């Protein structure tokens, strides 16, 4: 009897200590840093993205964190000032001891790239610059969706196929054998806005489109009449807008009022729910490269995204939320899914997280984005982009362009990393 009691006591102690050990192990906290622009030159899109980051992290924590470990998010506004981003990164690395960083702009992401490579710090940014897609040069940079250059190539291709080749307004010019004409509106000094310009001009040459003089438009522009008048002399059929929404809306309004007469294609950060609100009829027909569903649009995760937006940031009404929230969820889910794999393998560090991300093949985040694939030699997440246009203030799908299918050789041999 005494022996049996001893056995029971031992069993009880073993199970109790085992469970307690589980809890203690699970109490570990994983730290993530997030650098966001809530007050600077890209805050028109950065504020909503920042809200989305916090909401997505709350969701990940609610479903168990990283295999039971809670994520502690350190999120700072850097006002789109590169020196401040560099300083914040150093605080993340040296003081907060984060395992990875959710970044923002192209300027700071590219400026930090050599440092994060040296530190082996995974850096999932909201900059989708193609300069960050070649792992030989930027092995610790990644993002979840179509890069700017592929998005621009896709958008221009969609306009060429669906508008230039089909629209009756261009018939006479097509019949004469004339080439379509393109002008780029963007802030030349902005690494984000200028990132895809080389690819755009290369793609224009590929499709036989003439390119006119670039028009330098500030990200904070409230008046672009001189740029529109400058472009008008070239008589463009198409304008590429490379800035963010507020500046793009300004340029579209001025183009409309001054009768530029060109169609518009817009980079991802200039094409959101605020564009038709701000530009009104001037935005009708504008096409844009998109990377995921719009806020409230069709996507398996949308109900959760909306619920967390309401729960975590109840002061921001749903009708003011943007596609930027969904983009933020993409960054968070890409990183945290990889962290879960790395953690299970006992390698929750820079190398382990990056290797985990590079195992993703056709990964669907449930955000209405194209499935993403990564490898150790290619960090381009997708091979094209769905192109939408604005019709009566709503977003309508034009077509999903697959660049790899259409230009397989160029995709494989020429287009990576720029």
């Amino acid at each position, binding site marked *: 009897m005494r022996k049996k009691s001893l056995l029971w006591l031992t069993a009880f102690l073993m*199970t109790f200590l085992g469970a307690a050990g*589980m809890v203690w192990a699970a109490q570990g906290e994983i730290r993530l840093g997030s650098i966001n622009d809530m*007050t600077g030159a890209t805050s028109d899109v950065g504020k909503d993205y920042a809200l989305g980051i916090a909401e997505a992290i709350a969701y990940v924590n609610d479903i168990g*964190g990283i295999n039971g470990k809670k994520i*502690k998010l350190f999120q700072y506004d850097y006002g789109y000032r590169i020196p401040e981003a560099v300083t914040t990164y150093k605080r993340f690395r040296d003081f907060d001891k984060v395992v990875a960083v959710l970044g923002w702009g192209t300027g700071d992401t590219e400026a930090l790239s050599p440092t994060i490579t040296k530190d082996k710090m995974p850096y999932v940014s909201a900059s989708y610059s193609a300069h960050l897609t070649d792992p030989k040069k930027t092995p610790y940079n990644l993002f979840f969706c179509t890069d700017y250059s592929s998005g621009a190539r896709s958008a221009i291709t969609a306009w060429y196929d669906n508008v230039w080749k089909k629209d009756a307004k261009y018939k006479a010019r097509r019949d004469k054998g004339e080439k379509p004409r393109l002008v780029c509106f963007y802030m030349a000094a902005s690494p984000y806005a200028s990132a895809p310009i080389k690819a755009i001009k290369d793609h224009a040459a590929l499709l036989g489109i003439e390119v006119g003089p670039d028009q330098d438009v500030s990200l*904070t522009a409230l008046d672009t009449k001189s740029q529109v008048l400058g472009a008008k002399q070239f008589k463009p059929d198409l304008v590429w807008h490379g800035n963010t929404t507020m500046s793009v809306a300004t340029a579209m309004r001025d183009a409309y009022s001054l009768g530029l007469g060109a169609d518009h294609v817009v980079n991802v950060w200039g094409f959101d729910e605020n564009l038709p609100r701000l530009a009104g009829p001037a935005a009708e027909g504008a096409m844009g490269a998109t990377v995921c569903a719009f806020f409230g649009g069709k996507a398996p995760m949308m109900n959760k995204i909306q619920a967390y937006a309401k729960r*975590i*940031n109840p*002061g921001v009404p749903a009708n003011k939320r943007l596609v930027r929230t969904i983009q933020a969820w993409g960054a968070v889910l890409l990183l945290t899914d990889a962290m879960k794999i790395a953690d299970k393998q006992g390698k929750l560090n820079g190398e382990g997280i990056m290797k985990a991300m590079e195992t993703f093949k056709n990964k669907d985040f449930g955000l209405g984005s194209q499935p993403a694939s990564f490898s150790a030699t290619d960090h381009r997440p997708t091979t094209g982009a769905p192109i939408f246009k604005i019709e009566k203030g709503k977003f309508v799908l034009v077509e999903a362009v697959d660049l790899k299918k259409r230009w397989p050789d160029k995709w494989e041999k020429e287009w990576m990393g720029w």
Partner: protein
Amino acid sequence: MKKFAVTLFLLIGIVSLLALPCLAAEEKAATLEKAAPKATVGKGKAMKIAAAKAPMVKLDRIEIANYWGYYLDGILDKEGKLTAGRRGAPLVLSFVYSVQNPNNFKIMLDDLKFTVAFEEFELNTLTFFDDNYIPAKTTDYMRFNGTFDYNTANLSLLVTGGFKLQEMNIKSGDLLKKWWEGISDFTFPITVNGTATFVGPNGKNIIVPFEGTFPPK
């Protein structure tokens, strides 16, 4: 022996099940309270309260912690108007909040973030991550400092409020000058809108939205 093995298996299962809800618990968690009331704070509702009553967060006042006059180091623009100049004009504001813990146990403020608007223009979002414990049944006063600057405020105004300024036929510089010169008397309303995240004794987050205006209406 067979009975022993089955019971042991069940025991492991029960203890594991008991342990699972604690997986996300903070190591600093205190005793568990059973009540799960919903509380209203300001205009918002506390969300997903599992075990603790939601603390009340209220803007008590705003103070000027540090101020560079708009005119210091200022330069004249083309129209002969004084501007803050290229070096800007820093303005540090202290936001003092009262945080009331209605519970019988201490509770931890995990983070607090809020957006600050001068009149109807949002200029800055401030976040604080330092852990603070609020003792049981007490009201704590906490001070959060935020730095504003003429140049960064101007950038924010132009990007997010540019069209509104056009509609109001106001230049951003004129508005900033009015604010920087009127701040010492708080001649315009400053509003805050944010959320505070507390960690309850069971390790679950309690998110408390809050908003406030200073000077009070």
